[in-house]
């Protein structure tokens, strides 16, 4: 019996849960274990995680996944990490204990701070260097908030007694017993890294008041960082990628022009732009796609859509028109078209390419003819049109020839939505056989670093089409739908105003 390393493990430290998946050489799933952690809401708009709880869960899911696969850890060639992005933690270098709960990406406590950092220039003040606008999501402002708020923390950071990290850094530190490392993709979500040098940007650090001593070393996404101790004793820790970047890698979107979209409650599109750093003129973010050890970084443009799957959940939970998310397709198929109805789900404003925070959702084109089937169809079309607008922005920014859209995520089970996407985008939409692209990407990057897979071509050969949807409507119909959608979007603008400010008591 062989005891050769024959599998690769991926740890996915997500917003609501931590998972471990063991993959075989063909990229097939051998076992899965998952455990949820608490969402801590100290105040409205604040969302924290207990990093110690998360670490305990990670240890547990790793053990469970190995047990389920009936594997000793000696059969693992490597472990890779993918994680919720931007969530920010500071811990004590000596004791390894967090000094505060992790502040998650959804947390909006840095709202004021972000405006302050923008000064007279505004939210694009650091954009050219770090690729990101000033926003509450990113780690830099969260770290500044901690350094300012936790008594004595700034001084301890100056002396190098406390360490900053996103969740990848925390897990690498815990797994390896003390290596302080992050990867280029996670670092590219802090606002503190210079996209061109792939190093911390001293000018930005000065503005944010962040000492270099507290920051992790920035390493490629696919590289052997060290060897695990404890639960994975002896296994090389060989990859880290933010979740969306891992999905790009798992979709083997390795060529410029390759594009993936992950459809969940919200949706994220990433376009591989190769070695060029593309500054968007259309509200997209510039980010590092991934970096393989010894090679140049591959960059990406990112467009996010706030409300896609959550609109379906709204149909289920708030309108009660369906019992489960999947039934939106059944309801939408009771009609042949949208009956003239459009829904713009600007529940908290519009993201790329509009960036209108004062916009609010609208349902337009209502007539007595419109029934719940038309509404369901309009809800699915909203996801398709929003995807189209992000893709149009990407095309305008890069002139790259976007061939096909690679999709993943829970909503890809919706066949009607996939067809609407192909019709709306006028490109084929393809779904890969392994839907768990995020974990697969982390496993691929780790396996690549240790030579378990020889090169990117070997990974490309593992990618198989599970389904494909081809555009099936004529250009005139598409253009007509697009014009109506844009009119609907315009009707969502300028909704919130002084009347929405809190009234004095």
């Amino acid at each position, binding site marked *: 019996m062989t005891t050769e390393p024959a599998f690769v493990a991926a740890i996915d430290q997500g917003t609501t849960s931590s998972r471990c998946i063991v993959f075989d050489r063909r990229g097939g799933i051998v076992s899965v274990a998952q455990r949820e952690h608490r969402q801590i809401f100290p105040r409205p708009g604040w969302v924290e995680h207990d990093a110690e709880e998360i670490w305990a869960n990670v240890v547990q899911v790793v053990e469970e996944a190995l047990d389920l696969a009936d594997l000793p850890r000696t059969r693992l060639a490597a472990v890779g990490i993918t994680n919720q992005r931007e969530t920010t933690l500071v811990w004590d270098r000596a004791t390894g204990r967090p000094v505060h709960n992790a502040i998650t990406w959804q947390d909006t406590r840095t709202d004021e701070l972000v405006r302050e950092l923008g000064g007279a220039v505004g939210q694009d003040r650091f954009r050219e260097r770090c690729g990101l606008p000033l926003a509450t999501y990113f780690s830099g402002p969260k770290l500044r908030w901690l350094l300012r708020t936790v008594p004595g923390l700034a001084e301890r950071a100056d002396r190098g007694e406390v360490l900053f990290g996103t969740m990848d850094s925390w897990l690498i530190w815990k797994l390896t017993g003390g290596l302080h490392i992050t990867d280029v993709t996670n670092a590219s979500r802090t606002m503190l890294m210079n996209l061109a040098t792939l190093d911390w940007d001293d000018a930005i650090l000065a503005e944010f008041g962040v000492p270099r001593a507290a920051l992790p070393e920035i390493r490629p996404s696919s590289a052997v960082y060290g060897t695990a101790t404890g639960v994975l004793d002896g296994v090389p820790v060989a990859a880290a990628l933010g979740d969306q970047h891992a999905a790009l890698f798992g979709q083997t979107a390795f060529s410029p022009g390759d594009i993936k979209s992950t459809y969940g409650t919200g949706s994220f599109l990433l376009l591989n732009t190769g070695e060029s750093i593309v500054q968007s003129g259309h509200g997209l973010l510039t980010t590092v796609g991934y970096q393989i050890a010894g090679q140049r970084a591959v960059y990406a443009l990112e467009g996010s859509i706030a409300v896609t799957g959550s609109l379906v959940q709204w149909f289920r939970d708030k309108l009660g028109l369906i019992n489960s998310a999947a039934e939106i397709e059944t309801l939408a198929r009771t009609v042949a078209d949208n009956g003239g109805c459009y829904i713009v789900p600007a529940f908290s404003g519009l993201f790329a390419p509009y960036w209108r925070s004062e916009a609010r959702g609208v349902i337009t084109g209502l007539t007595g003819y419109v029934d719940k089937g038309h509404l369901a169809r309009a809800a699915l079309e909203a996801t398709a049109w929003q995807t189209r607008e992000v893709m149009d922005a990407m095309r305008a920014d890069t002139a790259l020839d976007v061939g096909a859209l690679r999709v993943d995520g829970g909503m890809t089970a919706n066949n009607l939505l996939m067809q609407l996407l192909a019709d709306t985008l006028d490109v084929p939409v393809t779904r890969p056989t392994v839907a*768990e692209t995020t974990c697969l990407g982390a496993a691929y990057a780790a396996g690549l670093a240790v030579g378990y897979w020889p090169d990117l071509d070997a990974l490309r050969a593992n990618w198989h089409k599970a389904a494909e*949807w081809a555009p099936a409507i004529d250009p005139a119909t598409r253009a007509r739908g697009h014009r109506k959608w844009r009119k609907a979007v315009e009707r969502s603008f300028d909704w919130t105003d002084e009347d929405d400010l809190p009234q004095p008591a």
Partner: protein
Amino acid sequence: MTESSTTMSNNVHARVSAVPGRIQSVERAAAILRLLASGARQLGVVELANALQLPKGTVHGILQTLQHVGFVEQSRSGGKYRLGAALLHLGNSYLDVNELRTRALNWADSLASRSRESVRIGSLHEGQVLVVHHVFRPDDSLQVLEVGALLPAHASALGKVLLAFDLQGESLLDELALKRFTARTLTTRRALTDDLERVRKLGWGAEVEEMIDGEAAVAAPIHDDRGIAVGAIGVSGAIERVCDENGKPRLDLVSTVRDAARSISRNLGARKW
């Protein structure tokens, strides 16, 4: 305050105790329905009477009433009884096909990866098999998505599994036109009934060049949390890959398909998200 609440609880108590115990005939009707739901087989008056240790006349009377409200149906051949369509649509026994696809997605993908063949999930729709999910054979050859296509129930592995296990499957037998597709298509009621009996006994079904020359398929039933067959999942491909040298379906493939069907069934028993 105390007085009025006492009065109220007395009233409630009085109303409850006015109900004269449980109604025996309703309990018996429920027992009959439970028996009919317990297996895929149809049952006759004698079998039911024996199982419940009741007089034949009593059972017959209850069956007549249940038939009147559509909760049971009597098959044309043999006069045996099965659950009626009205009962099947009560509650949530009807599983939305899009829900089925959503819950089966990961397992169907994994089945395609393991078997290296294309995967389909089907459910019965007006006497035919409606393809509700299709995963391409993972070899990047040109393939077209067949979701929404209809397959003949008597000539496909998916169809035979559904006819054997679906609550309404057997009632369809009388209505099926057993059209010939190949030399090996089962075109007599007798041959089909025998095959369905085998499918029930083994827990899986196959089609070997019965729909398309040179192609074979293996399928197994997907059950919901109450054991009701809500669909079938199967792989299909060239006969030389799906079958062994004796022309029988490869047993390793059969067990891979059954594993996937069991995993999806387990998942259906889980809570909705």
